């Protein structure tokens, strides 16, 4: 029993954008796309049940197959339903990442105009392959390097079974690449339970020592 009492105000949380850039090329057909869809739905449900995360987090969905598309503009889980993904086409991975970066920039402009503060946006790229041969990996590598230096967003690539690790390293620093095997569900469970740290701007590496999932699967 406290000898002091107090009522607190209802403060809303600072917004944080999470862009998921998802490989939906034809190699994802069958079990992988089913598992990815199930895991995304679980992730959505988990955020929806976490009042604090649901209030802070805006999710944006990018897919890349033969084209990169933004299939969900930044929105809180209250304001959209997780769309089912269909696998088809080649792997315009670089276009997908560029579109994710563009979405981050647009949303930051919006926050800057209206919000006193926001959490550093995060981009998570999922791929089971490698970029098409015509994709500009050198340009992307320069952009990611510069953006990491100026802390524009946090960036991670999650390679699933079959992804080409050495190709990914051509545009992404080694410490930002993780292999998650085929277990999307396990990864997204870890992701939703790690949202506090990620929203605070931590990288996967910052949280690695604290988390079983990352300890068991160091990746590189």
């Amino acid at each position, binding site marked *: 029993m*406290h*000898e*002091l*009492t*107090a*009522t*607190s*105000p209802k*403060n*809303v*949380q*600072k*917004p944080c954008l999470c862009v998921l850039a998802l490989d939906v090329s034809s190699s994802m057909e069958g079990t992988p796309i089913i598992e990815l869809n199930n895991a995304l739905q679980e992730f959505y449900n988990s955020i929806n049940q976490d009042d604090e995360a649901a209030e802070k987090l805006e999710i944006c969905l990018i897919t890349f197959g033969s084209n990169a598309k933004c299939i969900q503009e930044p929105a809180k889980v209250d304001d959209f339903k997780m769309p089912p993904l269909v696998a088809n086409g080649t792997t315009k991975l670089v276009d997908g990442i560029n579109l994710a970066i563009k979405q981050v920039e647009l949303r930051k402009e*919006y*926050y*800057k*105009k*209206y*919000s*006193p*503060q*926001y*959490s*550093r946006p995060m981009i998570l790229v999922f791929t089971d392959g490698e970029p098409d041969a015509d994709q500009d990996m050198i340009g992307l590598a320069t952009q990611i390097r510069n953006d990491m230096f100026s*802390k524009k967003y946090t960036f991670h690539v999650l390679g699933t079974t079959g992804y080409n690790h050495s190709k990914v390293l051509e545009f992404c620093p080694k410490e930002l690449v993780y292999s998650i095997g085929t277990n999307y569900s396990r990864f997204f469970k870890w992701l939703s339970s790690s949202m*506090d740290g990620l*929203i*605070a*701007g931590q990288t996967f590496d*910052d949280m690695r020592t*604290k988390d079983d999932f990352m300890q068991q699967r160091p990746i590189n």
Partner: protein
Amino acid sequence: MKDWKYLYAFVQGKGHIEDNIPCQDYCKVFQHKNYSICVVSDGAGSCEKSDLGSKKATEFTDIHFPKLIEQRKWHTPNAKIKSKEWHKVAIKGLRAIKEDLERVRIAEGCELKSLSCTIIIAIQFKTKLLLTHIGDGRAGYCNTKDEWKEMLTPYKGRYSNETVFITSNIWRDEETLDRYIESRIIEEKLKAFCLLTDGCENASFECYKINEKSSIPEDINKPFKEFFDENINVHIPNLIKAQKSQSELNEIWKSFLRTGNDTLKNESDDKSMILAVKIPA
């Protein structure tokens, strides 16, 4: 300041308890003849020795600021203090604290960055309050008309984890210092005031409210009356009437900051607050 009581404490946030990280906040009230110095400091979450940084910065305040005040006789009755003059003196004092932290860095064999901490310093005289700060803490006061007002603007970077600290690279020129160091003089008649780290802001301040036009939050920065009023008008006077000692008051305050209501209980960041209350005659 015999007619004032100070409740002060710092406690681990939920996140730091779960991760077994020490409390990185620190605060203390130093009582001098005719004036008091209140200090609240928040060690950076990502910096290894920031608990030491916040403790040392608080202690160094009571080495440098009394000298600066007493040299100028600001603690004597009817002393006139101009805002610009106070700002210059505040910068001088804060710079001396930063230089002392450099010495701690050498002794500890660590980088200055690992001692990163914010700081709020309030110097209370009989008729005025001098305030200076670096970082994202908040402070407010209640005047004798029972109006609560803010008394500093927290400096928040673009991102929620881009705070400026006393150890940050802000000491190169006057323009930069003026941007990151805010100093104010409050001359209203006071009934209470508070200094707090950002771990207490959600519980005690209206900070982020939805802008109806954009549906994006904006910072109101206003002490929340309902958080403070019952405590300063009823509960704390009762504790004082019950002749609680300073350490008993601080224990009660600590327990309150830890679990006083759901917002305080669920806060993941460390929490520290000084609440100063004028004792009714």
